[in-house]
């Protein structure tokens, strides 16, 4: 399929991050998409802002297994206890030492830098945008002890590795992801008649169900309230989820936990007996099981309310705040025909996005816009892996600070599990625009872009009226403000 260059540059921003100054524009958008979806995950970036033109793969030492992450979380907890127990330290000294330890030992900052480097430097931009949609859907906040260390595992193993399979499989992987189980308190969800609860009771310790994850699986991850489920269904779901999740804080079980982390189900904590939900009778007299959860998640993932909820969200995210009904319906048809096969559903969303471009535009998420600005200008503002936490550059800031500043830190900030809003009214405000204006100025002043704002405007086929506005600015750094904050680049 050959389409106009104007259209392909906008399409690449609608479903990706745009092209770097040294990247060629493809003539066939779907060949371009297919080739990147087939690639294995890889991370590209820079080692240091001192040498911003040397782009290479991230060192493999930053690839941590879940076991590595669990051990880091454990050591972190041990260290904090040690500091808090040290009576010779004042509260301020404990705070300072804790911060020092965390900066040097926790992987979060490198995880986050690598995540955003990938958006700026790697070629698989459409795959990444799909990934961003899904991690927002199965949102886990990195803003808490434990879940912050585990978050990158959730993103890579639970979500990205599921992009090529069914929604059913992604749902199972996301719900049983250690970061999710920790974040939504399921590590503390213990069957009321379980062996563990009985032991706890004998020690006068209270334990029982916690319905936090159960509720969000129904409300946010799958069918949504439109299905009309009841509090009893939530309670039953909590029983089925009981026993799932090993807390990194569970000291006595540390040994087995590390080994069993990939299958975090503990029978001793699970509700015993049958559980009835949605007309199914799950479990056995010995208790619910791993299969019980898989069965109920399969039911939910295949429910038409889940299909309707997810297809609409995908279209709102990629097409516009108000996507055409016919487009949403066609995506739903593909979902139904393929039983939620994600590659097929994604392909249809991308086809509909391309097909509705003449009538529908989308105001971009702040971090999507910021990553596009860096990628297309070739500017460097985000620390290299050697720079992280060194404060070595006087102006440039960390990925963590930028994402916080824009109010859209996937690794920090949002505490609620509903993810960041998809529609523009939540992102259009003087405070939001102030950040975009300043970030554009920063690119021009300190980002060392690889081309001028006018060159990029030409490359992106910006209309002449907008180009003449850019020309009115005599200071090159300010031309970047005029370009990056034009309607053409704020929307796609």
């Amino acid at each position: 399929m050959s389409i106009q260059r104007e259209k392909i540059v906008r399409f690449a921003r609608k479903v990706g991050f745009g092209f770097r100054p040294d990247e060629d524009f493809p003539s066939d958008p779907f060949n371009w998409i297919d080739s990147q979806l087939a690639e294995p995950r890889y991370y590209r970036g820079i080692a240091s802002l001192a040498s911003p033109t040397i782009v290479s793969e991230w060192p493999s030492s930053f690839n941590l297994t879940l076991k590595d992450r669990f051990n880091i979380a454990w050591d972190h907890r041990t260290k904090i206890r040690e500091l808090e127990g040290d009576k010779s330290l004042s509260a301020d000294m404990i705070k300072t030492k804790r911060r020092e330890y965390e900066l040097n030992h926790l992987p979060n900052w490198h995880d986050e830098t690598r995540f955003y480097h990938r958006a700026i430097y790697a070629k698989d931009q459409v795959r990444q945008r799909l990934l961003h949609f899904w991690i927002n859907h199965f949102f886990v906040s990195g803003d808490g002890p434990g879940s912050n260390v585990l978050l990158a595992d959730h993103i890579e193993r639970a979500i990205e590795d599921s992009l090529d399979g069914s929604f059913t499989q992604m749902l199972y992987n996301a719900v049983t992801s250690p970061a999710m189980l920790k974040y939504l308190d399921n590590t503390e969800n213990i069957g009321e008649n379980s062996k563990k609860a009985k032991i706890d009771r004998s020690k006068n310790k209270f334990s029982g169900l916690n319905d936090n994850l159960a509720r969000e699986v129904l409300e946010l991850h799958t069918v949504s309230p439109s299905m009309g489920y009841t509090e009893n269904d939530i309670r039953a779901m909590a029983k089925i989820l009981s026993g799932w999740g090993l807390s990194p804080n569970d000291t006595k079980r540390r040994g087995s936990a590390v080994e069993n982390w990939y299958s975090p189900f503990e029978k001793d904590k699970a509700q015993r007996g049958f559980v009835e939900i949605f007309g199914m009778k799950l479990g056995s007299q010995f208790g619910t099981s791993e299969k019980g959860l898989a069965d109920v998640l399969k039911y939910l993932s295949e429910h038409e309310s889940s299909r309707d909820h997810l297809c609409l969200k995908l279209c709102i995210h990629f097409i516009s705040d108000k996507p055409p009904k016919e487009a949403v319906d066609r995506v739903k048809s593909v979902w139904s025909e393929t039983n939620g096969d994600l590659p097929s559903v994604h392909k249809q969303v991308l086809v509909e996005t391309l097909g509705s471009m003449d009538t529908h535009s989308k105001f971009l998420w702040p971090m999507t816009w910021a990553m596009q600005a860096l990628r297309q200008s070739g500017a460097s503002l985000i620390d290299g892996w050697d720079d992280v936490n060194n404060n070595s550059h006087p102006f440039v800031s960390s990925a963590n600070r930028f994402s916080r500043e824009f109010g859209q830190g996937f690794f920090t900030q949002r505490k609620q599990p509903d993810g960041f809003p998809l529609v523009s009214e939540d992102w259009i405000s003087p405070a939001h625009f102030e950040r975009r204006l300043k970030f554009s100025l920063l690119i021009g002043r300190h980002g060392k872009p690889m081309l001028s704002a006018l060159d990029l405007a030409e490359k992106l086929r910006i209309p002449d009226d907008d180009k003449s506005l850019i020309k009115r600015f005599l200071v090159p750094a300010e031309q970047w403000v005029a370009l990056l904050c034009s309607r053409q680049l704020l929307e796609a």
Partner: protein
Amino acid sequence: MDRRDFLTLSSSLMVGACMASTTSYVHANPNHTQKRLAIVFLEGGMDGLAAVPPLGDKYLFDHRSDLIGHELFELNREFGLSKAMPNFYDMMRRGNGAIVHASGFPYTKRSHFEGQNVIQTGVKTPFAEKTGWVGRTLSQVNLGGRALSLSKPLLLRGYDDVDTIYPAQMKGAKYLQPELMDMILAGSEYSPLKESIVKIKELTQESNFNLSRDPETLAFQAGQAMADDNGPVVSFVRVGGFDTHAQQGVDKTSVQNQKLAELDSIFSAFESGLAKKWQDTIVLTITEFGRTVKMNGSYGTDHGFGSATIMAGGLLKSGAVVSDWPSLKKSRLFDSRDLNVTIDSRSIWCASLSEVFNINHETLSEEVFFDNTIPNISRYLFG
């Protein structure tokens, strides 16, 4: 404690504040008011039974003995107050506080996202309304607003003249030159950007606007701005983290008490910033729902129904706990698990709007909340 009225001594905060702005038409506007309303949104579902434990209810300890602190302020024979709120306790003693217990919005499905939507729109069906009850009130009186948050909160939507302030901290691009903004204004056709730049220009000229943005400082600044006779009439502060599903705790370092201490310091910051204007102010907390009466399996509480509305400010005269207590006896609980709601939150909001904007209860009920059955409880709060 039985079901009866209580009028007694007894108080409550993320970051985001909104304020009706200093606009030039303020003097000419016949609706101009010298009174002020600050709203504090307690996100996550605040546990009113932990903040203001009904010590006179004999069933309380049966449900949650591990969640009731040993050290509490005593408001009266029936109610205690978390020790995390010494400033608010003092306000109650001075008659500058009020608590409306067993209050809540008539929404019973316990979803954060639906709940946060309905308490901002003020209508019972989730996602049915695109504007907020404060925004609609501002529209009635034609007074602009300002949010100290990145985005314009739903609560304030419904009136165009509402700005947002949340100071940006970008090293290397700290200031935007007015000339740069003027050129974009002159050349750009993109109206959302242009409208924002007009606001940004106004805000950067304000002398009391600095770059700090911790909740306490923002509340202090909001208070200072509202203290000006021509200043903002409404402000909004958001405090997240009340969703205490696990390890809720009772001691000073517990999650619950840290959040209440944050609220306490924001009340105090508002009072300092408002100075004399405190006497003409209501600080009103809102939350999407309360929490389960019974402790869950993780020493926390799950989503419930009724909670406590904690209020401060000089316009409150009694320092009272206002409640039509429903009892914690299991048969009296909502769905056998939650504190029942006996006072509709909208009646508290109506009373507060009526006091600040001098609009009668009937008009507010019908034109802001679209429901003429909301009870008028003004006399319990404002005498």
